[in-house]
């Protein structure tokens, strides 16, 4: 499998506070990697570093074998991001929002791609509606539609289902995993929900106090740490 993201010895200090300490891992093409950890573990800092919103104190981030900070624009055109905490302008219509991002991501036929995303994410009927009129589930679908616009090779998701009801959250998972498998897209996502992480991830990474506590496939990790369930493993590691 092709390595699409390689994180090498990544550290981030905010003054004397250590948010990430020598974090290393790889992400492979078509793989779904779930990152879990308690509040303050460094999940969001890690995602922010991977998106270039926070500059690391040391370490390297390589996408497709290229240094992120030297090839920022090129790399960002091949990845995308969605979070339940980051909205799209509420005054714009659903279609307008997607069109703005289609142009930002240099999509060749923006109208066609937007129409395709509206169809996939079942937002076609809402296309002329102001974004502020969407429900939280529809809003998340819109954010995902924006995230899939450029057919990214890597998708970074920060707690994509936080605040969604279980039914919508499950639908969102199905959308992410089926689209990811179909397009051979790598997905890195953070979550607090152990069940969803176990269900859709190929591998998991457990972070605590900015350090990697465990990384691997769930059955292998359970065997390695002698745990019966992911919950037992997780609480054993973070306590």
């Amino acid at each position, binding site marked *: 499998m092709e390595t699409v993201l390689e994180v090498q010895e990544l550290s981030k200090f905010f003054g004397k506070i250590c948010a990430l300490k020598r974090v290393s891992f790889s992400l492979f093409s078509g793989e779904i990697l779930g990152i879990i950890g308690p509040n303050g573990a460094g999940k969001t800092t890690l995602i922010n570093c991977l998106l270039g919103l926070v*500059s690391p104190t040391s370490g390297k981030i390589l996408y497709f074998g290229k240094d992120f900070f030297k090839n920022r624009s090129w790399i960002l055109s091949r990845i995308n*991001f969605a979070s339940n905490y980051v*909205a*799209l302008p509420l005054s714009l219509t659903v279609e307008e929002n997607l069109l703005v991002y289609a142009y*930002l991501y*240099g999509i060749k036929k923006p109208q066609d791609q937007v129409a395709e995303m509206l169809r996939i994410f079942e937002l076609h009927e809402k296309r002329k509606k102001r974004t502020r009129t969407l429900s939280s589930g529809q809003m998340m679908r819109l954010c995902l539609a924006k995230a899939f616009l450029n057919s990214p090779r890597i998708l970074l998701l920060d707690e994509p289902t936080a605040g969604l009801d279980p039914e919508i959250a499950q639908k969102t998972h199905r959308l992410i995993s089926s689209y990811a498998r179909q397009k051979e897209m790598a997905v890195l996502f953070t979550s607090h929900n152990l069940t969803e992480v176990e269900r859709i991830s190929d591998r998991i990474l457990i972070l605590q106090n900015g350090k990697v506590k465990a990384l691997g496939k769930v059955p292998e990790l359970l065997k390695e740490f002698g745990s019966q369930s992911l919950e037992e493993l997780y609480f054993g590691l973070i306590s």
Partner: protein
Amino acid sequence: MNLRRVFAIFLRQLYLYRRSFTRILDVFYWPTVDLLLWGFVTLYLEKAGAQMPQYVSFFLGGLILWNILLRAQQGLSVSFLEDIWARNLLNLFVSPLTLNEYLAGLVLVSIVKVVIAFVVMTTLAALFFGFKIFVLGTSLLPFILNLCALGWAIGLVTMAAILRFGQEAEILAWALSFLFLPVSAVFYPVDVLPEMLQKIAAWVPSSYIFEGMRKVLLVKAFEKTLLLKASLLNLAYFFGSYFLFLDTYRDALKRGTIPKIGE
């Protein structure tokens, strides 16, 4: 009326102001600027005496050109704020968009705002007061370009302040330009100002533009040295503010404050 609740509201505001330098500044800012501005206008009117009809041209010309600066500045800083208010900044900054592209986009927005304001104001001035801004002739274009450049420079400083101090600095988007108003000599000549403020005005590019405008209206002569001084100062202002913004952005990346802006 429950006085405890009234007091609680007062206390809440007191806490807010106690921790916010910009809000405290705001309390003193507008009265000071207004007092200075209209005080100098009155002083000038007293001195001008018999030349009152010319003053209408000076005032309207000044007002139109001042609005160019203001719209150019707000086109940058308020548009930036719009992205913050919409919690959209993160989506933009994780897209392939470069910082220079983002700034160029905002400059474009500001040009549109300048054009609209200019068209509306020149039309109204011609319709209601018979004042035609185009009497400024070929000097009008360099005047406009210089005022836009200063507006963008102020806009970049405002954006840098918002990046550095967060949303509580957003008041600067409306206020910072007005700091330049008294020493820009928009509605009165520089020599009306006290000596100390004249020295400050010498370092403000817009003061040369408004002096130049009055010269064109008064003696129909375009003084190139005024324009040259304004342009050189504007270059320094523009690049100074641009590098300040870049530096603040890099610092925000290190401090990890960009994802928190607008929260």
